[in-house]
């Protein structure tokens, strides 16, 4: 999986590309830790538009990010949900845990 990071004002966007699974662990953490460290950032958006699959360990990584973001007063938004990705997140009812944007 490739991750492109961008910061605009107080919002950081991580655009994911490819298969989000166990092997993405290190890259994903490295990408969000930058954003967590910036005190000016209030919102971290994870964009799934180019993700074609995510497994349960990816869900675990999102939960871990959510916990760390809460501790630093930041909000995590899931965006660009479509196809299989949307289906997996819906079954896990992640809409009840995260802000979701179309």
């Amino acid at each position: 999986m490739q991750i492109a990071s961008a910061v605009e004002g107080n919002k950081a966007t991580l655009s994911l590309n490819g298969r989000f699974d166990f092997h993405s662990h290190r890259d994903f953490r490295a990408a969000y830790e930058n954003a967590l460290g910036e005190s000016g950032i209030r919102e971290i958006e994870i964009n799934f538009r180019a993700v074609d699959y995510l497994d349960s360990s990816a869900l675990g990584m999102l939960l871990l990010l959510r916990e760390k973001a809460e501790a630093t007063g930041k909000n995590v938004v899931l965006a660009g949900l479509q196809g299989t990705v949307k289906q997996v997140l819906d079954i896990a009812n992640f809409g009840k845990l995260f802000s979701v944007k179309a």
Partner: protein
Amino acid sequence: MSGASLKILIADDSPSNAKQLEILIRRAGHVPILAGDGRSAVALFQAESPDLVFMDIMMPGMDGIEAVRRIRALPTEKWTPIIFHSAQDGMGDIVAGLEAGGDDYLVKPASPRLLLAKLDAYARLLALQQKELGYIAELESWRLEAEEQSRLGAHVMERLTDAEGLRDPMIQSFNLPADTFSGDLLCAARGPGEVLNVMLADAAGHGLSAALSAMPLTQAFYSMTAKGFPLSSIAEELNRKLKALLPADRFVAASLASVDARNQTVEVWNGGNPDAAFVTLDGKVSMQWASNHPPLGILPDGLFSGTTETVVFHEPGQLVLCSDGLVEAEDPEGRWLGLGGTLDLLVGADDPQRRFAVLRDGLNRHLAGRAGRDDISCMLVTMLIERRRIPRFAAPMPVHQGHVAEWQLNLAFSAPELRYIDVVPAVLGFMTQVDALKPHQGTLFLIISELFNNALDHGLLGLDSATKNLIGGFEIYMQHRAEGLAALTAGRIGLSFLMHEDEGRAVLDIDVTDSGPGFDHEALLRDADLATNVTRPHGRGIALVRGLCSDLVFSGTGNRVWARFLL
């Protein structure tokens, strides 16, 4: 190789040549071993296992080419470089030497500078090999340790999942691990009222770490089921347990179901698993329970919801639970079996009894001999409508002989407690401590829960059982009940138990009072008489209690009931 000393075998039949090489090697800080012909070179190679070999070709008896061929044929775990050192300088000799297994070829007399440079070059290669062998040994010890942990994990997991309850004739299941063992967990057990509880849990990931996440669930599931706790309370407790034990990125998707063949209901809590489904015997998917909650172990107590969905089934059929490994099982082209594909297989079976086999076969065809990427599990619970009015454990039991210790227990619950305490399991928990009552646990659960629910539903909440007669009525009734209970601010239910002897017979008297307005109990008893003959959803409870007790008397305005149970 700086510092490290090599053991070097020199095979040469000329003592002066050997001596020259020996001195050079010794000066470079290595240890020479001498062999005067091919045969002793092979013997010394085996005895001393040197790090490097200098081999002459022309020697009496066995020549160098043959000696190298034999050395290379020996079993070995490491590479030992062999350098031919010979006066033969023809192309044919050099090629023959390398083909026999030599690594290098120096023509005699080689200059000391060249010999030393070669020694150093091979020392560097050997150091690299040494490092690699170290890594391999380390990997091997990791592998052995991991295997040992897996073995232990698989053993414990097998014991935990090998539940008596899964051998229930109503249940068929499979659990195919992606790893040494599965992170999917299947449980089944009967509660005191003959209700069958099942659980299919799927921990994030697979292998040991996933199995470890699922393990805490079993004990709570079995003990709470045995005590008769409602499904929502079991879900809440399982979530509480996992939330306390697991790190933030670990969770367990689960579907829990409670199957009540007597009341013809199926109750489901689904958090993170694919839809649970009910397939009628004639092959219609009559109900699907989608995941309504996040998986277990994520939400804190206050935010977690144990809300279940109950459906009345009017014809027999099968409840199907599965993990996402089944839905996401891939064929060789990477296409998922899907929920639709799964249900199509089940519905397509010509004989409902063969559905399980058809699903297994269909899955095997889909996977085409390859293992699943994730653990794949599925459970089928076959439900037949029980027409019998009296449950099977009400078969004649030996009359309790001898003296019983007399005791009395009085309990009173007001609205705030009624809202959150599971009264019946709490009371039953005490009852099962009394030896004389132990064999009657199931019957007592039925009697107490019917009388208590009657007091709560009709006495305090004013619910009308007739609602249950409507189509979809049971669901409406349960919803009204949940809403009424949440809004309950006043009211009181008293429970009193007296165990004693009457006319030489041990008896348990049960007295239930509520603060409600009462009701026309004579009409209810008339109804109850009807209910013994006619299948109707209300009045059945009272008819059942009447069948199980020797006496049943309503008094007051109908807000007090007294029942006697013979031991």
